[in-house]
């Protein structure tokens, strides 16, 4: 079951090597994204996650807010 993190935990985890993924549309990622985040829009997750991300390292996903 996915766990929630807040922004402080996120910063520590990313520094420690966690992968950070923005799942919003590419255009929104291009305008603003968190440092070290990669873009994988939700609709492309099935195709791209298995090759773009490492299954053995923690992954944190985010969008604009919970919506």
């Amino acid at each position: 079951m996915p766990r929630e993190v807040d922004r402080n935990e996120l910063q520590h985890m990313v520094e420690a090597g966690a992968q950070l993924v923005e799942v919003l549309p590419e255009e929104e990622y291009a305008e603003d994204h968190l440092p070290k985040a990669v873009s994988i829009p939700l609709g492309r997750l099935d195709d791209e996650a298995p090759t773009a991300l490492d299954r053995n390292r923690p992954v944190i996903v985010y969008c604009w807010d919970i919506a």
Partner: protein
Amino acid sequence: MSPRAAWRLESLGFVEVYEYRGGKLDWMAAGLPTEGTNAKRPRAGGLARADVPTCRLDERLGDVRNRAREQGWDAAVVINSERVVFGLLRAKELDLEADQQVSQAMRPAPSTFRPYVLAEEMAAYMRDHERVSVVITTSDGRLVGLLRQEDVSG
């Protein structure tokens, strides 16, 4: 959107999946830096004057007025020990009876804006609402600085 993404990653075999529910909104509202094309555009947080004089609720108004004007300011922001904003003293309030407490003279609970708002949006708002300055705070109410019309009109 992110809950679906997190669950889907788990189903794809990712073992350690986390979700940052606050998302980009929470991040930017805290005044943290972003990357991207908008990151280079000026925002309220970057232009706000962090050196605006501050004071506490129980200070004597006359003392705050003197301190602010010595520093070349016609305003002061009323905060607590955690830098949470309680009020604003503009020129009009600073000129009230000097022996009263700040809490009696201040404008309580001023409207505040988040640091990520683009400078051009703030300029339009301040022009339309005839505001000479607005208080910029993080999402938890902590003072970032005072944004003056001249800071965004250039």
